[in-house]
C-alpha cells in the first residue's frame, strides 16, 4: 500500500508534466481561441472584401446588468456567441442514419488537426530542465515530425467519408466520395513537394528544420541572411515552386476554396455535413478551421522559419531592449530569456495568423475548380512538377554545394 501511495503522490517525471503543460497551453491557450478568432475573421474579412461591414454588434452585453448601452467591441463578441448558439441548438438526428458512425464522424474530423499540432515547434526553448538541457517548445519532439504530420492529417478524411456515408442521403454521400478521392490525389503532391526540404536539411525533425533555417535563412528565400552562395541562388528559384505546390495541396487537403468540392454549396446542398446540426455541425466547422491552423503551422515551420525572425534573438538571449537588463536584480537573470521566448511564441502565432488571413483571402477571391480540373491539376501537373523539382534540388545540392 505504501508503494501505491508513493506511486500516486510521487511528483510526475519532468518530461511528462512539461508535456502536459505544453499541451494545455497549445490547446486552450492558442488553438481554441485561434479557431474561434479564425471563424470571426472569416466573416469579417469576407465582409470587407465584398464592401460590407460584417458582424459588428455583438460585444459585452452590459445592458443585461443595468447599463444603458452594450459595448460592441467591433463585434468581437461574435467569437463567443457563435459557438454558444451552435451548442444550444437542437441536435436533430435523421431517422435513417447509421447512428454510430453518424456520432463518431464529427469527432474524427476534429481530432487529427489537433494531433498534428503536437509536433510543430511553436517557440524557442527558454526553460531549462533539471538535467540542464533546454526544454523544446514542442509537445512531442520526434524525429519523424513531418511524416507524422502527413500520416495524421491523412486520417482526417475518415471523418468526412463516414459522415457522408452514415448520413444515408445522396448529397452528403457524393461529398464524402469526392473528398476521399481528392485527398488521396493531393497527398501525393503534398508529400513530394516537401522532399526537397528534407534533402536540404537532412532531417525530418521539425525542430531541427527550424534550427537549420535560423542558421541558413528561411527556406522560401534562402538568401535572406545575406551570405552569398550559388546554391542558395539556385534553391531560391526551386524552393518557391515547392512552396506553391505545397500551399495549393494544403488548400486541397483542408477542403478550402478553390478546392472545397466536398461541401460545394451550389451543387451538393451542404456536402458531407448536410444532415448535421448543433454540435455535430460545429465540430465539422471547427475541425475545418483547426485543420487550417495546423496547415498554416506546418507551412510556417517548413518554409517560413517557424518561430524565428531575423533580428529577434531566441530564449538564450541575455539582453533586453533599451539596456533594461542592467537594472535588473541578480535573481531576475532569467527574465531576458523568458521575454524573448515569449516574443518568439508570438512571432510564430503571428505568422500562423498571417497564413490564416491568406487562406480566407483566397477563399473569397478564387472560384471553385471543376472536379476534372482538380484531378488534372493534382495528378498531371503537381505530381510531375514536384518530382522534377526533387531531381533539380538534388542536383543543386550535389554539384553546387
Amino acid at each position: 500500500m505504501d508503494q501505491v501511495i508513493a506511486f500516486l503522490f510521487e511528483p510526475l517525471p519532468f518530461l511528462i508534466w512539461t508535456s502536459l503543460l505544453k499541451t494545455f497551453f497549445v490547446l486552450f491557450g492558442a488553438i481554441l481561441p485561434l479557431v474561434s478568432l479564425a471563424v470571426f475573421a472569416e466573416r469579417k474579412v469576407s465582409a470587407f472584401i465584398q464592401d460590407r461591414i460584417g458582424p459588428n454588434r455583438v460585444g459585452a452585453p452590459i445592458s443585461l446588468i443595468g447599463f444603458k448601452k452594450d459595448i460592441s467591441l467591433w463585434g468581437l463578441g461574435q467569437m463567443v456567441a457563435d459557438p454558444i448558439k451552435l451548442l444550444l441548438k437542437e441536435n436533430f438526428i435523421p431517422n435513417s442514419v447509421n447512428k454510430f458512425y453518424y456520432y463518431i464522424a464529427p469527432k474524427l474530423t476534429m481530432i487529427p488537426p489537433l494531433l498534428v499540432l503536437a509536433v510543430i515547434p511553436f517557440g524557442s526553448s527558454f526553460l531549462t530542465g533539471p538535467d540542464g538541457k533546454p526544454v523544446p517548445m514542442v509537445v512531442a519532439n520526434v524525429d519523424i515530425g513531418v511524416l507524422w504530420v502527413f500520416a495524421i492529417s491523412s486520417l482526417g478524411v475518415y471523418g468526412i467519408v463516414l459522415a457522408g456515408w452514415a448520413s444515408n442521403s445522396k448529397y452528403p454521400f457524393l461529398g464524402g466520395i469526392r473528398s476521399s478521392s481528392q485527398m488521396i490525389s493531393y497527398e501525393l503532391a503534398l508529400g513530394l513537394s516537401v522532399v526537397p526540404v528534407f534533402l536540404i536539411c537532412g532531417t525530418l525533425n521539425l525542430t531541427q528544420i527550424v534550427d537549420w533555417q535560423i542558421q541558413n535563412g528561411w527556406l522560401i528565400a534562402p538568401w535572406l541572411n545575406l551570405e552569398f552562395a550559388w546554391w542558395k541562388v539556385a534553391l531560391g528559384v526551386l524552393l518557391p515552386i515547392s512552396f506553391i505546390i505545397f500551399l495549393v495541396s494544403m488548400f486541397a487537403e483542408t477542403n478550402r476554396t478553390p478546392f472545397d468540392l466536398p461541401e460545394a454549396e451550389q451543387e451538393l446542398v451542404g456536402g458531407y455535413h448536410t444532415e448535421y446540426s448543433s454540435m455535430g455541425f460545429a465540430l465539422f466547422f471547427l475541425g475545418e478551421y483547426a485543420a487550417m491552423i495546423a496547415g498554416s503551422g506546418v507551412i510556417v515551420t517548413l518554409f517560413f522559419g517557424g518561430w524565428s525572425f531575423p533580428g529577434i534573438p531566441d530564449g538564450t538571449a541575455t539582453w533586453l531592449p533599451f539596456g533594461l537588463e542592467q537594472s535588473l536584480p541578480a535573481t531576475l537573470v532569467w527574465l531576458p530569456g523568458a521575454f524573448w521566448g515569449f516574443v518568439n511564441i508570438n512571432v510564430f502565432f503571428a505568422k500562423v495568423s498571417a497564413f490564416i488571413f491568406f487562406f480566407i483571402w483566397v477563399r473569397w477571391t478564387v472560384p471553385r475548380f471543376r472536379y476534372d480540373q482538380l484531378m488534372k491539376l493534382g495528378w498531371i501537373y503537381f505530381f510531375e512538377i514536384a518530382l522534377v523539382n526533387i531531381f533539380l534540388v538534388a542536383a543543386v545540392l550535389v554539384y553546387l554545394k
Partner: protein
Amino acid sequence: MAIVVQRPKLSLAEKLYLPAVLGGLFLTFKHFLRSLGGKSVTMQYPEQRWDDKLPPWYRGAPTLVKDEWGRERCVSCQLCEFICPPRAITITPEEIPTNDPWAKVEKRPKEFEIDMIRCIYCGLCEEVCPEQAIYLRKDYAITGYSRAEMKHNKEKLYELGGVMPGVVNKWNENK
C-alpha cells in the same frame, strides 16, 4: 446547324492561372482596404434608414387618409375588400346619421381592418378606390408581438395615413 465555338488559345501565363489568381487577390485586397477605411456600402439598419430616399411611388403599408377638413374619405363601398387578393381587408359599414355635417354621403366605415399578416402590398386597393381614400404609404417595417397586434384597425390606419389634401372631392359641398 451546330456552331462550334473555338476555345480561345491561352498563352503560357494564362495557362499557369497564377497571374490571374494574383490579379484577383490584388483586386479583393483593394476592396478589403477600402472597407477597412470605412467606405463600405452597408446601411446600418435600425440607426440608418431608407425613409428619406424612398421614391414617391413606394408601396408601403396600406393606410386610410382624411381630407383637409378632417373628413373620412372612405364611403364603405367595399370595392377594396372585394379586390383584395389575399382578402386582408374587412369593412363593417355604418350609415351616417342625418344630423351629421357630412350626411350627404350615406355610409362610412364603422370598422376597417387590414390584416397585415395577409397583406401583400400589391396596391390594388389603392388603385380600385373611387374616393382615393386608401393609400400605400412608406411604412415598411410593420411588426408586432401577436397576431392581434398585426391587425390594423381604423384608428391605426388613420394614424398611419394622416391627411391627404384635395385630390378627389366629388361629394364635398365645400368644393
